[in-house]
């Protein structure tokens, strides 16, 4: 039962609402900045080599008509989904449509590995129902196991991206640990020349240190799933730093994975935090206005403040428990 519950922690629906907005808008960015050649493939299907999933589903060859339709449908459904009005209907359109979009984009002999978490996130988000719609959904503190499962799936896929990278490195060497001592980063820099990387070519030992740090970090990444609060944040920051370094050296950013790290963030705290701040500002205003009129009033305002702080502390504790989930 404990194992079952690990997959379905109760997490506030507000986190799902935030993720929907961010991820559906990110998909639009992705279609223009990252997997952006899908429509070109529709115009020139010459190099099209369908991947397994496309063959299994017998998906039609990309054409101008179907890739343009896919583009329009995705943009419309993402915009609707991002508002959190009709998020499930829109979500069930975005998930298969974007999967097909990426599938076409990668059916040319080269597959990128930065889209796993994003694609899975799009498939699990519409499974979560919710009573509140639109703006109200961003502050919905109702905790739901369905929401927790969706969040957990995204978290697992983010971590899998790293952990399985270390496995692939062992496998490619015939299940041996030769990768971190090899010249792989030198190779990568020679093929993607760029000032920071080319400067590093003079210091192969630095590159070897980076390779060791990288593969050890990747191999240990599953620990982050069980870390809580601050320690989990450190884990996340380590990998964000890892991506920053990769971007500086190789211009490889992995943003579609990076954005999914938000599944670990207690986004449901944003609205209460904002409300508490506003309430405090308001009570301070009221306090200063009344200060001159009655002395008794200030004592009352003081006790109000104390109540507010206690309330915040309580919320903080609660949110921390969820964040660790």
């Amino acid at each position: 039962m404990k194992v079952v519950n690990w997959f379905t922690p109760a997490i506030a629906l507000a986190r799902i609402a935030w993720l929907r907005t961010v991820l559906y808008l990110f998909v639009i960015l992705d279609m223009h900045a990252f997997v952006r050649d899908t429509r070109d493939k529709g115009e020139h299907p010459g190099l099209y080599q369908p991947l397994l999933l496309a063959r299994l589903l017998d998906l039609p060859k990309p054409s101008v008509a179907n890739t343009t339709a896919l583009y329009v449908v995705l943009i419309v459904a993402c915009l609707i989904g991002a508002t959190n009005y009709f998020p499930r209907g829109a979500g069930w359109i975005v998930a298969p449509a974007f999967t097909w979009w990426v599938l076409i984009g990668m059916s040319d002999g080269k597959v990128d590995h930065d889209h796993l978490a994003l694609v899975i996130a799009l498939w699990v988000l519409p499974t979560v129902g919710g009573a509140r719609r639109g703006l109200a959904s961003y502050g919905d503190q109702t905790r739901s196991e369905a929401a927790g499962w969706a969040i957990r799936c995204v978290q697992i896929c983010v971590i899998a991206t790293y952990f399985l990278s270390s496995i692939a490195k062992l496998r490619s060497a015939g299940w041996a640990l030769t990768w971190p001592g090899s010249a792989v980063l030198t190779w990568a820099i020679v093929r993607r020349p760029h000032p920071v990387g080319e400067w590093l070519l003079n210091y192969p030992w630095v590159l070897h240190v980076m390779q060791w740090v990288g593969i050890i970090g990747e191999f240990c990444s599953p620990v982050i799933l069980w870390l809580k609060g601050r320690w989990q944040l450190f884990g996340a920051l380590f990998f964000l730093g890892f991506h920053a370094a990769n971007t500086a050296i190789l211009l490889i950013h992995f943003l579609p994975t990076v954005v999914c790290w938000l599944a670990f963030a207690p986004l449901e705290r944003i609205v209460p935090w904002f409300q508490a701040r506003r309430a405090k500002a308001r009570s301070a205003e009221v306090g200063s206005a009344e200060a001159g009129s009655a002395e008794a009033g200030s004592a009352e305002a003081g006790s109000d403040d104390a109540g507010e702080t206690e309330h915040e502390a309580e919320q903080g504790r609660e949110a921390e428990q969820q964040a660790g989930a």
Partner: protein
Amino acid sequence: MVTQSQEDRQTPAVVRSGPVGKGLRVLVAVVGIGLLINGSVRASDDAWPFGPMSQYAMSVPDDAKIDYTRISALTDAGTTVDVPLNIEGAGVARAEIEARTGEIVKDPSLLQQVADGWARKHPDQPKYVKLELIRDTTQLVKGRVEGPPTSQVLATWEVRK
């Protein structure tokens, strides 16, 4: 009034999933993890999104030859240029060309679409009249780059109008 709304926030309701919903969710998650492991242990990129995370996963020996494939073009203005292998340039990425090098060597006419892509995206620029698929090779010695790369022409294609 205040206490009521605070109470709501302090003890948020928990919506539990029923046994079927929960069981199904756990099953899907476990099957997904199984597919990922299977992909990493035995499958290839073909199994996307459940394939291995094999980008930059290979061990490169200290005495490796590093290949870098590019396309050089002779234009109708008489100049020789490197074709920009990206979406904005010729509409095709370097990785695609590298992945299909063998096929292009066998059938150089595949290079025609590189010229077409360039002409379509840059109608006001000089057209390509002849394309060469070139492999630059950099030699590593003890893990360090040794000297400038050597070039080899793999395929040549006279562009059809």
